[in-house]
């Protein structure tokens, strides 16, 4: 059976630095943090928490009034990111769109339309309303983003949504790779989106005692993955989409190829809901390398999961040390969550996009605010403070979820044959 190579031909982003992936990447290279103090509405929280907010995003301007009025913020991020990626890939847009029965959507979200549902609860339980909008069902469902993306782009193949906490969109991208590789789809819009900055969600994460603190200027550097003084994670909102196509099809139509999505590995720790395990992560790392046909010697960069928690960071570095052995010291590692926060179900897609741009530009964005590496996190080449120009042949993007689910994506640099 023909095994198609998978080209990344379009990138779409809704993030705190705006919707331009290249310009956002530049800000990351400079080590600029998007984290700031935040109080959600309705304001149940008494003090601000550090968070990453997509202030510049306007749903009506991006999607039109009708779609904006019947979608949760998570879906709005997703649809907008997907439309941007489609346009970036140089694909035709129109209304109604051209039907593509072999076009698919693979989307990831951890929480789906939780914001719409939570606000409805608030109206009923706090304000005494006795009814909710009839649109709440279609706003709250986890597959709303995928459905709207398929409708907007005329994609008539499978439209799936994976919800695997913080690995959701990495797994969506992995499943998309398989659809293209095995000839089941000729184009896939894959990615993820999340809008978790609701009062209820922030209270719940705060109750788990994993949120970093810091007000005013201190908020900017609140997330310090791998640092000896790290103090927890920072939640963020956003979304990213990648357009994937078989290499030969992309080359035939003269598309710009950013990178190759070369491999995908997934595993489960089968151990604990919230205590990661190196052996489980190693299985996913090795599976991704094997799937891509990559030797450890060819791998130059890992965009890590690196949330900034005491529990997670050393386990992740331990897994990398064991998989890469003596080469680990030469593998560049960074966590862009130090600047973008943790976008939960969207984080895999956003970091995949960053990894693709790292390969395309031969630049590695840093782990910001990393001045003193925790001894338990040593043994790899930490890129700290500001980004570096590095020759990169292949890179990994890791996502490790509550529930013990691990997903690793492997990307190869695109070398033009023309």
């Amino acid at each position, binding site marked *: 059976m023909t095994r198609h190579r998978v080209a990344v031909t379009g990138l779409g982003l809704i993030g705190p630095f705006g919707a331009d992936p290249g310009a956002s990447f530049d800000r990351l290279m400079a080590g600029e943090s998007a984290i700031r103090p935040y109080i959600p509405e309705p304001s149940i929280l008494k003090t601000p928490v550090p968070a990453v907010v997509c202030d510049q995003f306007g749903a009506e301007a991006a999607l039109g009034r*009708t779609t904006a009025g019947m979608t949760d913020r998570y879906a709005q991020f997703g649809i907008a990111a997907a439309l941007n990626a489609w346009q970036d890939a140089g694909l035709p847009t129109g209304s109604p769109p051209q039907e593509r029965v072999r076009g698919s959507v693979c989307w990831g979200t951890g929480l789906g339309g939780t914001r719409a549902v939570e606000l409805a609860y608030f109206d009923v339980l706090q304000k005494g309303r006795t009814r909710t909008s009839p649109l709440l069902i279609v706003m709250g469902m986890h597959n709303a983003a995928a459905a709207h993306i398929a409708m907007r782009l005329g994609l008539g193949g499978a439209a799936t949504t994976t919800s695997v906490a913080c690995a959701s969109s990495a797994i969506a991208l992995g499943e998309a790779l398989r659809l293209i590789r095995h000839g089941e789809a000729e184009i896939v819009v894959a990615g993820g989106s999340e809008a978790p900055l609701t009062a209820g969600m922030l209270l719940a994460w705060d109750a788990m005692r994993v949120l970093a603190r810091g007000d005013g200027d201190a908020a900017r550097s609140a997330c310090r993955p791998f640092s000896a003084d790290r103090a927890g994670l920072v939640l963020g909102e956003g979304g990213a989409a990648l357009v994937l196509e078989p290499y030969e099809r992309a080359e035939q139509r003269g598309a710009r190829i950013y990178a190759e999505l070369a491999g995908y590995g997934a595993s489960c720790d089968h151990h604990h809901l919230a205590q990661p395990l190196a052996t489980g992560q190693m299985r996913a790392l090795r599976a991704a390398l094997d799937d891509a046909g990559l030797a450890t010697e060819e791998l130059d960069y890992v965009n890590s999961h690196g949330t900034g928690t005491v529990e997670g960071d050393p386990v992740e570095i331990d897994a990398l040390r064991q998989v890469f052995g003596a080469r680990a010291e030469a593998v560049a590692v960074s966590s862009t969550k130090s600047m973008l926060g943790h976008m939960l179900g969207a984080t895999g897609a956003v970091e995949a996009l960053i990894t693709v741009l790292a390969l395309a530009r031969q630049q590695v964005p840093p782990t910001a605010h990393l001045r003193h590496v925790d001894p338990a996190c040593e043994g790899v080449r930490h890129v700290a403070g500001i980004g570096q120009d590095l020759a990169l042949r292949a890179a990994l993007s890791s996502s490790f979820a509550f529930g013990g689910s691990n997903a690793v994506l492997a990307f190869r640099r695109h070398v033009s044959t023309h």
Partner: protein
Amino acid sequence: MSLSRLTQDMQTLELLRQYLQKKASIDPARVTPEARLEDIGVDSLILIDLMFELEESLNVRVPDMDSRPTTVAELIDLFDALSVPQAKIA
């Protein structure tokens, strides 16, 4: 048709126009009594949301029905049969 019924019709039509412009960017000039709902862009989801908003604005409840209205006039008739004159305009 009585004057009060005519006034009520106009109020409901105005509510409809306001809602459809605000929620779905539908030009108020297209929202005429004879217009078919699907022709002006009111699909099943927008219709059910519209009926919900009208129920809230007019403080009435539409009973379960066998068939849904297909024209603006049918929709207005449905609500005017349930509501009292002088309902507030949102």
